């Protein structure tokens, strides 16, 4: 079980959090201008790296705040936690 440091509440067990997948996926401002392929890329395609991964977490059973984390998918080490700007 990961130990995750909520930027607002401090270190808490993983069971208090929900996982939001890859971070920094920006919703296209004008979806109508996208081809089906481009839209599908936004909708479905995700990086699945072996190693460092930027991802979203939510302190669902705490302050309900979303934040970003940089985590190593091999060692589960959380390298960095930073707020959504």
């Amino acid at each position, binding site marked *: 079980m*990961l*130990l995750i440091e909520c930027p607002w509440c401090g270190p808490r067990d993983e069971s208090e959090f*929900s996982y939001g997948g890859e971070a920094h996926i920006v*919703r296209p401002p004008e979806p*109508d201008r996208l081809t*089906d392929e481009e*839209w599908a890329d936004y909708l479905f395609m995700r990086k699945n790296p072996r190693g460092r991964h930027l991802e979203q977490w*939510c302190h669902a059973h705490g302050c*309900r705040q*979303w934040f970003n984390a940089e985590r190593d998918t091999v060692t589960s080490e959380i390298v960095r936690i930073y707020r959504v700007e």
Partner: protein
Amino acid sequence: MSISQPFRLVGGGRIDRRRRVDFRFNGLRFEGYRGDTLASALLANGVRTVGRSIKYHRPRGFVGSGAEEPNGIFTVRHTGVEGSTIPHAPGTVVELVEGLEAHAVNGWPSLRFDFAGGLQWLGGMLSAGFYYKTFMWPRAAWHWYEWAIRRMAGNGRAPDGPDPDRYDKRNAFCDVLVVGGGPAGLAASLAAARAGARVILADDQPELGGSLLGARRQLGGKPAFAWVANCAAALADEPEVTVLSRTTAFGFYDHGFVAALERCTDHLPPPRRRGPRERVWRIRARRVVLAAGATERPLVFENNDRPGIMLAGAAAAYVNRYGVAPGRRAVVFTNNDSAWRAALDLVEAKIEVAAIVDVRPEPGGALAARAEAAGIPVLAGHAVVDTQGRNALRRVRAARLDGSGARNLDCDLLAVSGGWNPNLHLHAQSGGRPRFDETRGCFLPGPPVQAETGAGACRGTFRLDACVREGAQAGREAALAAGFRDVGVISAPSTDEEGTTDPDPAWAVHSRRPRPRRAFVDFQNDATAADLALAVREGFESIEHIKRYTLLGFGTDQGKTGNVNGMALAAGALGRSPAQVGTTTFRPPYTPVTFGAAAGLATGELHDPLRVTPMHEWHEAQGAVFEPVGQWLRPWYFPKPGEEMRAAVARECLAAREGVGLFDASTLGKIDLQGPDAAVFLDRIYTNDWSSLAIGRCRYGLMLGEDGMVMDDGVTARLGEHHYLMTTTTGGAAHVLGWLERWRQTEWPELRVRFTSVTDQWATIGVAGPRSRDLVASLCEEIDLGPESFRFMEFREGVFAGVPCRIFRISFTGELSFEINVPADYGRYAWDRIVERTEEFSITPYGTETMHVLRAEKGFIVVGQETDGSVTPVDLGMEWILSKKKDFIGRRSLARSDCRRPDRRRLVGLAAADPNEVLPEGAQLVDEPFTFLPVPMVGYVTSSYWSPNLGRSIALALVAGGRDRSRVFAALEDGRFVPVDVVSPVFLDPRGERQRG
């Protein structure tokens, strides 16, 4: 020697000889001492055969003296304690208590005469993969085969009733967690504690000492146990140290999270048991010192499984720790020096050692002189190649490695040692990758991945004084790394250490025959060296596949004694080194964990939180039948005395359309939205237009995922300029709130809007039916309820029955109806005021079933019933709710080619040709039942009811192409195909006149 315990030594051991303990084994009475395990007490009584092997039904005895035991597995109960059964306990870890009743797990119908014992003469028939290959035909007979195999294989009997015991869980934090209370672990704990660190020491034994409990050793010129006692006393004096005895660390997870199982009461006589039986410790440690010791491995030779053949370290432990002679005349067979010390311990206990058989040409090192002084004959460069004895060992046959010089040695105990395997389980679970060390002939921990260090035997360090030194250093460094002061180098006592435990690294199968068939590797699963060779011959190469084919390491002991031998032999057959073949995966738990401990207190009523509405007690008093909806318990229907469900629901349905139906809708999710950008936010989240909604009005909204699929729905009201109240489905409330938060925080942080769940703050009372307006008016004087002044899809604030209220004129039934929201604490009060008027307005309470029927009559969907995450609003015929003027979540996806396929399944109504036929929900729909298989499925029934208002059955369904079809057939479970007309999903009042009335 007492007559009742003929194999009890005169003195010695850590048992309390003043406290006799009566117990039973397979119905017979025996006697042991406090401090015994079930295994040591049975051996003291001369009971050597304690089970039958799983496949060949060969008699088996104890091999080990701890958690590694593969053979001596028992079902354990206690006299007079109902229901408390441990189905699969190793006798080597079960502490003896008064009234204990043990039964051999394997050996139906009896140990002495085993019905299936003849199986062993079937020889090669039951080789690896035998079950896979043989019992596959005929398939119909498999259930019989399975019954017979399971019966013969034994396995524990699961208890019949619910577990009467309580279990607990506890979270703990520490700076340094030390796993193992042996020499390395004790030294590590003390060093870390002296630096000021908060220390937890978890040890699986009843008392500290680890390997020293079973060995006769010196430390600092004194018996090692004096050193252990000093350490234990010093730890007890440290205020920041918690010593957890009888506690097995069974799993090492991410970020220093270690789970440990404490056995709290099993060692106590039942009347003295208090509190939970077992407790799971969930420990978050900044640093972990693994001092988990090592497990001895057997040697592989023909007939190496007879009762009386055990690990040399176990034989020494029975002598030194329990004062039990595991035999009267022993042979020691080894490839390393550790067994020589065991031989000397046996001699010290007046047990005759007929010979030390050592495969090494010049064995024994410094111990050789002591063995000679003790008069022990030594057969160097020899191996045991076979054994004899029908129910227990009588004789072994030893020969030179080239087969010459064979001789028989009479003995009833063969103590074997093939070297020691560091206990790498926790290291590997933490992410470490064990590597093979050729010199020491074992796998060693790899570089640490987490904040973890090994110390002592689990790191391949076997010298006693080196273990103490290494432990102290590990404890010192762990405390330092956790931010505590450096206590400096800690002096460690010297020891009487002689010899080496590095084994002869040759991995051999010792036998007179070129292809021995009875050289066992995994005792619990009867996997032999021949099985491993066969697996390789049949083409298996990966050790993970070989493991699955031969069942190596698949028993409850997880192959603690057999795995490394098996991997090395498989490597040999493949022509590779053990380093190349590697280990199989070390999965938690290290030792079995009971389901009770895994569940903890979360059983029965505490399994999941139960949510009830403020009116729940009234429902109960009315005899409501409840149904769970998520965590909520909702009234399903309200039967009158003697009334069946169908009759009750029919009565409720008619009443809601003729008089007044009364419904508890408090479980609907309610989210309060406030902020100047609330309308903009709703426009993006919902498919329809919200900016135009006037204060005081409500609107139905549909929420999609970004993939265009329907996610949730509900009515949202505009309470004020910047204030909205959103309702969600009962089950979707938490998810919707998370969804809103996610978009606002991660995508649109610039929007000024905030969300608060108010589901529990409001009680919601629905009243439906032609007379509902009169009813509400009688309790609510200040709000003008006239059809022109309070119109459909509007809301008003005011006072209802003297309490503040919000009344919504919305309808999920298709009737004139009102939803009255009052603060939750007034819910029951307001409900009672309505119920008082039952006769005046002919009020009938109804439950969720009637609610479903009423909405289905109107063709209203239920998210999660008509939708399953693959249904778009277009599929539901709800194009009208999709705004063309703005973007919203999911809109772009509706234009994807797949969402525009003409043959997508669409919502339709179904009317069975036989109006009395209520189709089962989930029934598959086909065009043409009597055609070639497979019959294409064109849709399925999503909702189906008997409609009392229509006097016939109705159903909703998703059908490919929707109403392009006019007739389909529903496939019923009884094999019938019934014709069904495809109709409009709105069965009643298609123009909606009733709800607008």
